[in-house]
Structure formats: structure tokens, C-alpha cells
């Protein structure tokens, strides 16, 4: 069939973004792991985001060129996942969940608190480039609502304004909030027996 029209792989990605030799080697190794090169789009976008801090259209074009994939494909993938930053963000990205469970248990108040505290609106980045505040949809931690995720990484749960303040201080001082292990309430054993007892 036809192979006409510009294939829209990046023709000239800006010289400001390029992969290092080591990164290119890493990408080659990744390619060998998958039957199709399309599958490597995700990890390579991660490599790019780790190194440039974001995957803006120029970076997407670089990824497309490196993998010899259509630019539109890489763009579609990058746009689909909120975890990829399509523009430069603050050093710490605060994703506060305001979906159903978190919303009901005060997630929106946490957002308002952070807005006041950081002096920005949701979706914005502080002038010193330290924090970006975002609203997130359900992050699958409804049991510990309200919660937020920090820069695609650690979850901070059972948020209160005080806890949030502490987390901000920690981040500014350069440490990461600790991982909190929260035990799930176990299912009542008597209840289990009842349900499992159908053949008795």
C-alpha cells in the first residue's frame, strides 16, 4: 500500500535534547527485549523524562526519531499517561487525589490548603520551581484517603493539613517522606467460616 506523505518522524529534533551514548546503549538493550519496537516507547519515555525532567513535544520527537517510530505514536502515548510530564514541572510534583473516596474524606480541602500555603493555583508551579500542585484521579489507595503521590513516586496517606506541612518541610530539606506501611483490616475469621461453610 501507499507509503506517501511525510511519515512525520521527527525531521529535526532540536539540538538541545539528545540521548547520551550510555542512554542509547540502554535503549538498544531494551529494544532487544521486546518483539516490537513500539513496546519500547514507554521505557524510553521514562529514560527521557528522568534525564530532561519532562517529555515536551521536542523530547517526544527525539524519542520518535531514536526509535524510528511515527512522531504521532509517541505523542499519543505520552499524552495518554498523566505520569509523563508534557511540559517542565517543579522539582516536586504533588498529585493530590480528589477522586471519589479522597474527595469525600477531604482531598479537596488538602488541595485548597496547599494552594494557600504555596501561593499557587492547582496546575501551577511555584516561582522558585520547587513545587507543582496537581489534582489526580483515583490512585488506587482509597483505603488511606485522602492521599497524594509525590513526583510519580511515594504515596503519602491519611493527609491532614499538619501532615502536609510536615511533608513540605521534608521535601524542602531534601529528604523524601517515609514509606508508611498500613495494614489492611483483616476479614473477620468467623465471617469467612460462614461463607466457606456451604458444604457442611
Amino acid at each position, binding site marked *: *500500500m*501507499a*507509503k*506517501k*506523505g*511525510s*511519515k*512525520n518522524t521527527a525531521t529535526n529534533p532540536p539540538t538541545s535534547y539528545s540521548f547520551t551514548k550510555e542512554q542509547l546503549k540502554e535503549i538498544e538493550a531494551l529494544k532487544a527485549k521486546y518483539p516490537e519496537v513500539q513496546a519500547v516507547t514507554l521505557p524510553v519515555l521514562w529514560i527521557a523524562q528522568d534525564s530532561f525532567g519532562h517529555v515536551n*513535544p521536542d523530547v*517526544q*520527537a527525539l524519542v*520518535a526519531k531514536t526509535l524510528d517510530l*511515527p*512522531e*504521532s*505514536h*509517541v*505523542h*499519543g502515548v505520552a*499524552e*495518554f499517561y498523566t505520569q509523563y510530564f508534557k511540559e517542565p514541572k517543579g522539582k516536586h510534583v504533588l498529585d493530590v487525589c480528589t477522586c471519589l473516596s479522597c474527595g469525600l474524606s477531604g482531598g479537596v480541602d488538602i488541595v485548597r490548603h496547599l494552594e494557600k500555603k504555596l501561593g499557587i493555583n492547582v496546575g501551577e508551579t511555584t516561582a522558585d520551581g520547587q513545587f507543582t500542585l496537581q489534582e489526580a484521579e483515583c490512585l488506587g489507595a482509597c483505603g488511606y484517603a485522602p492521599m497524594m503521590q509525590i513526583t510519580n513516586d511515594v504515596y503519602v496517606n491519611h493527609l491532614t493539613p499538619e501532615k502536609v506541612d510536615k511533608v513540605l518541610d521534608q521535601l524542602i530539606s531534601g529528604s523524601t517522606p517515609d514509606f508508611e506501611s498500613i495494614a489492611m483490616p483483616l476479614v473477620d475469621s468467623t465471617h469467612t467460616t460462614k461463607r466457606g461453610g456451604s458444604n457442611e
Partner: protein
Amino acid sequence: MAEIVIDGKSYSFEGKPKLLDFILSKDKEVPFFCYHPSMSAPANCRMCMVKVGQYVKNRDTGEYELDEHGERQIRWFPKLQTSCNMDMMDDMIVHTHETDNLVKRAHKDTLEMILINHPLDCPICDQAGECPLQIQTYKYGPEGSRFEVKKQHKPKHVQLGPRVTLDAERCINCTRCTRFTDEISQSHQLTITRRGDKNHPTTAPGTVFDDPYSMNTIDLCPVGALTSTDFRFKARVWEMNQTPGLDITNGKGVNVDLWTRDNLVLRITPRHNPHVNDYWMTDKGRDAIQLYNENRLSTPSLRLHPKDKDLVMTSWDNTLQTIQEIVESTDSKQILSLGSPYASVEENAAWAHFSQTILKQKPSYTAHVEKGAGDGFLLVDDQAPNTAGCDLLGLKKRTKAALKKAVSESQVIFSLHDDYIERGWITKEDLKGKTWIYFGTNLTQIANAATLTVPITCAAEHTASYINVDQRIQRTYPAKETKYTNRRLDLEMSEGRLDRFGTKFDHWVNEDNKIDCKPLWEIVSDLFSLWGQTITYRHGRDVLESLNQTITALDGITYQAMDDHRGVLLSTSEPQEAST
């Protein structure tokens, strides 16, 4: 052979057809949006739901298990299934909405879901009247919506490329358009951006959707999300008449539909022909509307004195007599007669008949081939629609140099269609002192320089056949009237649709835009009679019938046969008489 029971009726089948395809081929209906017979089936619109089950067989005996009433037991799939990507299996039982209320309910709910954020702007939407979403909602949709919240807003009138405009709010994210650029045109220019209720098709940042086949996505789009930048808001679907025709912008012979209103061709869309173009056409082919509507030669015109700047209109009678005078006062060796690959088989044949009888020579022609213009799909090197037709009629092919030489050696030149000046094959200077009689449809450069211009019908105005690069002969229908035809009398012309009393009607509001032109075969018949010969070609059919006798390859080829088989592949490409 495998058996399947659909709505209580059993059908046998072979291979592994997809269920939706099979049901549709049995003249039954299942509503769908994302499925397209020529592309992969991602099953993402969820509209084509059916209930599917299988007869239970005893593993040991291979006998059907029976229930207490002695009926075969059925094991239903746990949920409704999308039929578009379901492989058919032996012993399957299928319930469509015709026999199952659950399926009906599924259709209703899917539509309610699809319509949550749909703007419902059918009154101003180009797609209204031919919109699967509108039709499906009318037939299977809910009465109203339970969603009272504000609709999600998305980008509107986005210029995706030079020819395609997107209204993202109307999009139902079926991905037909992105699959088209991935699988058919392979330009990979489109993708879906964002997700959830914010997603819509887009190009990569900084790129434009300039695929040479981009406008097919407009036809594909099951809603009015992708619209033609040029045709947008020009006409409602029901105001236009839809007439089958051919793409005359190159030699591929793509099958098209011409959409006309008030004798203007307003848009051209592809017509399905698995032997030629499947469901597709080039963007370039759609530009033919300009050829049909604009800059047309209308009424014969004559340059009274060689020095005159302009041609003056003249009558048909005078035109014919002028031709007769010119021919009779010129030595036939001084006359050059040219046919054209831009004209149909019938026009070339009628002209050749006259030329051979009266001008004592077989016409020659020049092919218009642009090396490298083809792409192995629907663009081909041959720029003219009927080069093979000229060859079949045995017209001698001239090169550029041979044409120039022949022109310089002749006093009187009869030419058809081709604009040799625009193509750079001859110059205006070459016409100096010559009598050039031009039969054409448009005010080309050569028409401007000619001595006498005779307007003839274009492919949108006559019934005539064209032979494509693969030797397939196909025909056109009149889609618009000339000054001398009437769509109510000429039963070949399409007239919109039937009203509820079965009477044809259309929504044309005026009788303007009729061109004063005649089919070339009619002009030829009139010329013959001036010479006292009775040869009457009233219709393209008359010419074709005479060719049936004289050209073996055309033996038995009729318009009916072309209609029945979507064009006929000719068995030979040999020119009948190569000598000129």
C-alpha cells in the same frame, strides 16, 4: 461445513468469518461504529453487541447434551460479546437485538454513554442525514439522557491539515481515522491524544495532516467530527443528488459518487469497488469539482480574425458550417486530427470515425504520463483517465517532439481536451497562422489560443466509458444537466430520493449553471449529416454498440455489463490496427 444459528435461523459457513461481517452479509443488521471491513477491528465503540452461546456436547460421546425438555443445552458466554471481532465457530448460537431484549438494552445503554458528551448539534452538522450516530440513535437509542451535568468541552474547528477540519466534541473516539493513516495510507499522521472524556484525534505537535489521502477520514468518520474544510456548511446531504461516476484526474479509474445540487458538483466521494479502489480515493481526485463547475467552455466561440484578441460566441449551426468550410478548403494532408486520453472511449471513437471518413486520417494522441507521480496505491503516473482506451481504438501515440512537428507541418488542427500549452509541449507561438479547432470542456490555455472552440460535455454530464491503467472499462453517468438535457426526462440522471409516494424529487432550487455544450458524438453526427451521411450517435451507447462490432476486445461489452460487474476487465490490450 460449520453451522451457526442466528436468531433461530441456521446458516452454514466456511473458514473463520467475523460474526458482524457475516450477519451483515445476510442482509441483517447489527449497529456498529468502529468496525470497518477494510481495517483491523479494535472493538472499542461497544455498539455491535450480541448474545453468543454454544451447544454443549458430551465430551465422551460427542452427543449434544439435552435439557429436561429434550432441547439442546446452550452454554452462553458470560457477557454480551462484540460481534465485530468475534470469530465464528461451529455450533454457535447468536441472538441479535431482533430476538433478545438484553441486547436491545445494551445498544440503548451504549448509545446513552456515547452521547453523554456529544454536542447534539445535528441541525448545523454536515454529517446530518448520513450520520451513523444519528441513524443508530434514531433506531436503537434511548429516548433521552439521564445525564444532567454539564457536557465536557473539547477543541472545535481544529484545522488538522489543509483539507480536514476537526470538531473534537462530536468525536466518539472510534479510531477509524487513526487506523486509516496507520493501515491504509500509512502516513501515520494521526493519533488519539489524552484519555477518558478528553480524548480526540490529533497530529503530532508541529505537524499537519497533509496525507494525500487525508479526506478519506472524512467519509470514514461515523460522526461529523472530521469534516471537509472546503465543503463545510456548503450543503445538506438531502439537497444533493448522488450519481455514480469516475475519478478522471488520473488513470486509476477510481469509482466515485458525484454529489450535485443546482447543476453544480459540490463534492466527490469514493464509491466502493473492490477491484479498483476499495473504499478510498485520493484527495486530488476530489478537486475535479473545479473542472466540472468552474471555467467551463459554454457556447461555441470563434475568432473572427486571427489578430482578434477575443473569441466571439457563435451558434452551433455556424460552428458546424465553419468546420465544413475549413475542411473543404484544406488539403487533407494539411489537417492534423488529435484524439485525447482525457476523453472517453466513445468520444475518441466517434471522433475517429469522423476523422477517418471525412478527414481521411486516423487521429493520433499524446499520453500524459508523469514519471514518479504514482505511489503503488491510487496515485498513478498516468495523469489521464483513458490512455488505454486510445490505445485500444488504435490511435497512434505521439511523443512531445512528434506532436510539435506534426503541428508545425499542418495548417488545420482538430484537437480534443488536452491542454498542450499548459503542459509545455507547444507554445502559443506554434499556433500562429494555424486554424486550431478545439473540442473541450474548460477554458484552457489552448482554448484561449484556438480559432474555434466547441464546448463538449464533461464526465459529469454524459454516459461514457473509460479504460483504466489496468484495462478495466468503467462508465460514468450524467450527474448534472446541460442546456440540452433535463433530469426529469433523462431517466439516467439521479434525482435525489423517492418521496413517500414513490415519486422522485430533489431539493434543487434553480435551473442555473447549465452549460451550453453537447456530447462530442452528437456533434460528430451533425457534422456527418452536413456531408450528407446519416450516422446517428444520440447516446454514448450508440457509439459503444458500433464498437462492439469492430473491436474484438469490446465485443459484448455493454453499460449493463459494466454496472453488473463494477467495470469489466478487458481481455486484450492489443491495439486493433496499429497503422496510421
